[in-house]
């Protein structure tokens, strides 16, 4: 991403960005990405981003958590599996089989939550290729503050550069930029 060549339109207003995205999409322009300082509602739909599959991941992780919570306790505490079969124990006269299920529930529940939360967190970071210390590919230092950016790959335009520039200008881009071989070129609007 750092060495991709991009054409960038800079906005200071989400409405302008949205209409730009709408217009370009209608023209068949493949939008590389948008960069906004806050989540812009419906931008994802406008850009045609498919609904993320992370929810499925969360469900799988949660199921894993539930399963491990159950197995962990059945293994460690009951005479059905593992430990207590070989090490039977009498703890306050309490049962050491599936009947102790009620006292297993808190841990089963907590592990389900733990696995879900951390599972989805890690999946999110993996999917977004985020990790501590990663250097961000910043197109404009204000893109995380008050500027909204649209980025288009020059190779996937579908329309001419001029037309593109025209559309961006019309929709209120306050700046146009281009990045070539890692270097920024500013084209003032």
């Amino acid at each position, binding site marked *: 991403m750092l060495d991709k060549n991009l054409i960038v339109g800079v906005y200071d207003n989400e409405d302008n960005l949205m209409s730009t995205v709408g217009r370009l999409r209608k023209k068949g322009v493949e939008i590389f990405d*948008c*960069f906004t300082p806050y*989540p812009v509602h419906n931008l994802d739909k406008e850009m045609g981003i498919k609904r993320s599959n992370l929810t499925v991941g969360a469900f799988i992780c949660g199921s894993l958590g539930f399963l491990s919570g159950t197995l962990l306790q059945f293994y460690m505490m009951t005479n059905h599996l593992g430990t207590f079969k070989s*090490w039977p124990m009498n703890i306050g006269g309490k049962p050491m089989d599936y009947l102790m299920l009620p006292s297993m529930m808190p841990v089963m529940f907590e*592990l389900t*939550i733990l696995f879900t939360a951390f599972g989805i967190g890690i999946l999110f970071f993996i999917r977004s290729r985020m*990790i501590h210390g990663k250097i961000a590919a*910043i197109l404009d*230092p204000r893109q995380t503050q008050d500027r909204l950016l649209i980025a288009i790959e020059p190779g996937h335009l579908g329309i001419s550069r001029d037309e593109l520039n025209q559309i961006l200008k019309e929709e209120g881009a306050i700046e146009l930029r281009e990045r070539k071989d890692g270097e920024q070129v500013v084209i003032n609007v």
Partner: protein
Amino acid sequence: MYEASIRKPLVTGNKTITDISDDICRPIENKPTKLWYLGFTISFIFLGIMGVSLAWTTWEGIGTWGVNKTIMWGWDITNFVFWVGIGHAGTLISAILLLFRQKWRMAINRSAEAMTIFAVMCAAIFPLFHMGRVWLGYWPLPLPNAFGSLWVNFNSPLLWDVFAISTYFSVSLLFWYLGLIPDIATVRDRATTKARKFWYGFFAMGWDGSARTWHRYEVVSLILAGVSTPLVLSVHTIVSFDFATSVIPGWHTTIFPPYFVAGAIFSGFGMVLTLLVIARSVLKLTDYITVEHLEAMTKVVMLTGSMVGLAYLTEFFIAQYSGVEYEQYAFLNRATGPYWWAYWTMMTCNLLAPQVFWFKWARTTPWFIFIMSIVVNIGMWFERFVIIVTSLHRDYLPSSWAMYSPTITEVGIFLGTMGLFFTCFFLFSKYLPVVNMSEMKSIVKSRE
């Protein structure tokens, strides 16, 4: 997009998104005020007291506390439950209110979540150090015992606690950190010094505000909020099991889980109010954390206070109605025994005091809210003291009845956790954006 005509705006002062970045990043980018230094120094001294007290406890033994053969838990577990309770508001605000689409939470959820994390840190100190052999504190983890394959006891509510508290802490931390990433990126991109650029860059995890990431980010937030909601309810439920599953009259009661959860929300909001009333003026954030926010929170305080009060009365009634002499005595003893003052402090602070919030003036006067929030904190601390100490000090056999008073060490640890809490909070207010900028921006953007 959000502009309800009936309600007052959530952000006042005609702020633009540029203003938001400037205003909220100001404390990070500028030198701290004298007030900050003063507060931080005091907090840090208290943190030092905690260090000394804990070291003394570990060196000498639990005997340095006031606990005895009858009352084996005193201030330690009282403080533990107190802090865990406080730790409930943050996740509640960010998770449940997120699910309910309550936008007023946006101004306060960051600091409330921070408070949660710090409070749980404070809380964790107590169960750890109340162990006689703290150096073996890892034994409750499900680790095998030296090839005998002897594990831990999942019947024990303490073990449930271990899982619940550690899950709660780590999930809250994740949730909080996830919310911070875009804001850290903002600070990173505004950074003027190398160090700031490096460290904020390190923790921003390469965030660039891509629309695709934002899309996934929102999905993750929603799921985390979804799992945090039952989590937050489960944590205090499980903490209440420590008592509810025991045989001690005054502990052994089924009302505890809902009652503890309501109490936790109550105390959590109390502490949030305490912090925010100060923070909004010290950090000059009155435009973001408005009186409207405070009012909304006082309503929650009043509601949960009344719920807790109802629980107090219910358990008293049930004890008398049960016909069990030990139960009856335990509750009468709370109200009329040697610790009557604790009981009536609790009743006054938790049941009666919040009723003033029926009045609009009380809900909208920050200094009064501040005082009331302190009252709530005190009341909730006493609730835990009442439950733990007065139940234990007179249980079944009168021969073992005893009294308990804390030692300087215990007081030191408690004050020390206050120090830890505020030290963390001061550091947080200096180094991290105390208001969620990206969310705030999404509220104001349309008014440019």
